[in-house]
Structures are given as C-alpha cells and as structure tokens.
C-alpha cells in the first residue's frame, strides 16, 4: 500500500478499499479458498439448484424436515471430526449408534426408566470409544484395524443382544424429543446446535483443543513438549463414542424403535461430512462448523434428489462423486 498510514481518515478508508478489492477477486480464483469453503459453497449451490428445480424444496416445512433429518448426521460428524483431527478414523461410529439404540431399547423393555436407558446407551457407546482409543494407543494397533474390528464386534453384539429383532420404544419423552419444536427448530436440531457449540468451544477455546490439533499435526513433537498424546487420542475416541450415544437416542426417537440393522450410510456420510468440512484427513487441522455444514449439505442432496423423484439408487452415487470431488479440491488447501 503506497498510502502513508498517518493520512486523514478519508484517504485511509480509500486505502483500505484499494487493498481489499483485489484480494476479493484473487480469492475467487484461488483454489484454496474453494477448498476452505467447500461445504458452504456446496450447500449454497445445492440450495440454489434444488430451489430452482423443485417448488417444494425451499418451503419452510421441507427446510424443517431437512434439518431434523440432518441432526443425527451433524452429531456424528462432530464425533468423527475429533478423531480425524488426531489423524485417526472411527469406522465403528455407525455400529456404535446401532448398539446404543439396541441397549436403549432393551434397557427400556427390561423396565429401566427411559432416562436411565438413554444414559446407559451413552455410557455404552462412550465405553466403546474408550476401548477403541486404548487399543489404538496402548495396543499400538492402526486405527482403522481397531475400529473395523470394533465395527464387526459390536454389530454382532447388537444382533446377539436383540436376537436380530427390532425393539419398540414407546416413550412420550422420546416422542416429544422427536416431534417437539422450540421456536423454528425441532428439539433434535437444538441438540445438534448445542453439540456444535460445545464442540467448537472445546476445539478452539480449550487447552484440550490445541493439544488435540498438536497431536494430530505432529504427535512426536507434541509429546516432546510433554503433551500426553495417547491420552488426547483416547479422549478423542471417547468423544466420538459419546456422540454416537447421543445420535442413538435421536435415532430411536426418530424411528420409534431400536433397530439392530446397521445403517452403513451413516458411517460413510460422517466421514464424507468431515472431508467436505475441510478437515485434514492427515490430522492437525479441523473445524466444527465445516463438518456440520457438510452434514447439512449431504442431507440437502438426498432430500433434493428425493423431491426430484430421482431413484434412491442414485443417492450413494451422488454422495460418492461429491466426496471424491471435495477431497480433490482439498489438495489445494493452504
């Protein structure tokens, strides 16, 4: 900037203006801008596309339904984000949701109060996360092997416990949770918003958050500085398990029963949302809003395709294409 800093305010404003304009133009041709904002750009693009092509898409009712449908995935993506930030991955996430749901259903059927059954489900999924973390750090086994094993193990456990049969959960508390509204949003949406806020503060405003990113970035350097990287990783997997527990409550509330069938698209979409949210899969770099918006975007995609009566068979294909594209753009991240 050639304008001296001690000029009159008017000319200083002009100077600022001069400086910011080319940077905006430069921003739009800079691939790293698109990489950082992939999920937002994608969401806006989809909203415009579906808003134009489907008369129903932009209605308040559809928006509310979409947010409700996105709540579970948002919560799961947050859990996955904490793990991916440590350069790990939690493949057992969707299986944990299923086991949490089964435990919730069976606990309730066995006479536990609905509240106690929910707490039990969250404790169980958190314990699974803790176990993942301990096996990965103390057992020195690669993360995807451990969580793949856990995926299979707890899927089997869910089937054994439930006998492969769904358990009906007739609870007014869960019914209210699923269908109640506070202001413009349903309760599950508020749960997701609360999860986003808490996770954001934990990641950006606590020592744990910095240590998490340091562990994911360069674990050896972090531990040379006295950060207990193993504990940080175990905490990340436990958080992931905790999120799976919250998601299992939302899921049981939504469908009214505990299904021992594992929902594989939840796992893939949780990883996809994290990738779309420009969280580095190599660890050390993360945000919470990014994956949350990524989860919204994936839900909008499925919702819009359904409204356009595109066969459900095309949805996994669309999700796959978008995720790989997002990962490609990610290479240009600064």
């Amino acid at each position, binding site marked *: 900037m050639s304008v001296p800093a001690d000029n009159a305010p008017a000319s200083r404003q002009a100077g600022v203006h001069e400086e910011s304009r080319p940077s905006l133009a430069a921003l739009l041709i800079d691939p790293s801008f698109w990489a950082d904002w992939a999920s937002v750009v994608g969401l806006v693009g989809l909203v415009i596309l579906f808003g134009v092509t489907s008369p129903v898409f932009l209605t308040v009712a559809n928006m509310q339904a979409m947010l409700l449908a996105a709540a579970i995935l948002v919560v799961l993506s947050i859990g996955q984000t904490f793990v991916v930030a440590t350069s790990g991955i939690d493949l057992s996430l969707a299986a944990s949701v299923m086991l949490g749901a089964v435990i919730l259903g069976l606990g309730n059927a066995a006479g536990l109060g609905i509240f106690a059954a929910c707490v039990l489900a969250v404790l169980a999924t958190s314990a699974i996360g803790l176990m993942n973390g301990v096996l990965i750090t103390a057992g020195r086994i690669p993360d995807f092997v451990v969580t793949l094993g856990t995926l299979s193990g707890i899927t089997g456990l869910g089937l054994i416990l439930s006998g492969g049969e769904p358990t009906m959960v007739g609870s007014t508390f869960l019914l209210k949770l699923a269908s109640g509204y506070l202001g413009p949003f349903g309760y599950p949406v508020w749960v997701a918003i609360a999860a986003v806020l808490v996770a954001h503060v934990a990641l950006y405003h606590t020592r744990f958050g910095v240590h998490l990113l340091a562990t994911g970035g*360069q674990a050896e350097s972090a531990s040379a500085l006295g950060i207990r990287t193993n504990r940080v990783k175990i905490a990340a997997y436990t958080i992931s398990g905790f999120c799976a527990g919250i998601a299992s409550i939302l899921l049981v509330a939504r469908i009214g029963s505990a299904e021992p069938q594992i929902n594989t698209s939840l796992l893939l979409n949780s990883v996809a949302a994290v990738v779309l949210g420009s969280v580095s899969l190599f660890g050390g770099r993360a945000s919470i809003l990014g994956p949350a918006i990524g989860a919204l975007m994936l839900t909008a995609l499925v919702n819009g395709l359904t409204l356009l009566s595109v066969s459900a068979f095309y949805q996994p294909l669309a999700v796959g294409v978008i995720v790989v594209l997002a990962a490609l753009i990610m290479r240009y991240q600064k």
Partner: protein
Amino acid sequence: MSTVNHIAPSEAILACQGLSKHFGGIRAFTDVGFQARRGEVTAVIGDNGAGKSTLIRCLVGVHVPDGGTIYFDGRQHPFSNPDEARKSGIETVHQNLALIDELTVAQNLFLNREIVRRIGPFALLDRKAMKEQARAMLSRLSINVPSVTQRVRRLSGGQRQAISICRAAGSGAKLVVMDEPTAALGVQETANVEALIRKLREQGVSVILISHNFDQVRRLSDQIWVMRAGKMVATVRSSETTGNELVAMVTGAA
C-alpha cells in the same frame, strides 16, 4: 583423561561426573565428566557417533544414564523424563522435533503452557493474552515473523528455528540446550540464529550447544568440550584455541 575439574560447583548450572550409558552391548559413552557454567555458552563437539547427542539426552532426561551423577543448579538431580527437566528449568531445542506446522506461531510458543481464564468450572484459552505475550517474546529477541497468528507451516527454516529457540527461552528457562541449531539453515539464517544465541546469553540464559561447525563454536561459545569415541577427551576456553587444534582434538590426531 584430560577432563578438567577447575570449576567450582556453584558456578556450574549443569554438571555430571562418571556418567555412563550403554544400549545393550553398545557403549554410547563411559565415565564422562562435564560442566556447563552459569551464564555461558558451552559447546560440545565431536565426530558423528562420539556420543554427544546421547550425553545431552541423558542430561535432559530423555535417556536415564546407567551410572554416574548429574547436578543441576547446585543440586543432585537425575531427571527420569524430559518433563521433569523442563519443570526444573532445562529447555531443549530439538533438531527435528520442533514446531507443529498446522498451529500458529502464538499457539506454538504457548504449546502445553497455554494461558487460560477460569470461568466457573471451565478453563478457556486466553488467546488475546497469548498473542500479546507472543509478540513481546519475539520482539525481546528481535525475531521477525509476519504475524503471530500465522501458521508455522508457511515460515522459513530460520524463522522456525528462531521460534523454537524463543519458545525454549520464553519459559524462563535457566538452561537452553540446542542440538545442531543451524544444521539445516542458509548463511543469512545461520547468522540470525547465532545472533539469537548471543542475545540469550546477554539476557543471562545459560546455553549448551551441540555443533559440528567448529568456526561457529569458536564464534559463539565460551567453553568447548570435546568428545571422541564415547569419552570426554578435552575441554578448552574458546578464546584460547584454534580451529586446527579443535580438529586435532576431535579426530585424535593431537
């Protein structure tokens, strides 16, 4: 064994006697005596495999020595891990294990000693205070970086090394240990880091410097210790020696 014991213990910030370390059947060093004076730059030189790095790692608690005693700040002080050493006031600038690329300059400077504000039961980072103090730390050592909120990934090798040293010194360390601090740097960057080391000494911080560069050692240090094949073979005042003499001591030609 020409190890000289002419320094009074109270003058030494860090000293050891009869120190030995073996890895299985392989002897890293035996019966080493060494002293670093308070407020001085003490250099340890030697050929590859002479045992310098292992000795330093024993002194700062990375390895536990097999035998011998270590004194730090006048007290017998065997450190069982680097954390203990750090808490007692020894900071180490590692050759490769230095900074976290994805974190900012300020986050790196305060890594694992973050400033927090207590709000009820929660402790939240005081990012503003950390940024301000980071700026102050950097300017005290005349280190130039574009911004303390910049990610370290985008800095040059010299800037990164300067920040590592700043972090080590900034914690109020009594002794900063540096392992080949200029090994990967260009000429200008090396000069900057050397200026930084002088600045540390001016501010009363003791420094132990491991280096291969004999000219650098003579420029920077007050006392030079020479290791050869797992033994401490000589020590000289830097002002009383020449490059040729150092080469002779390191290679054993003298």
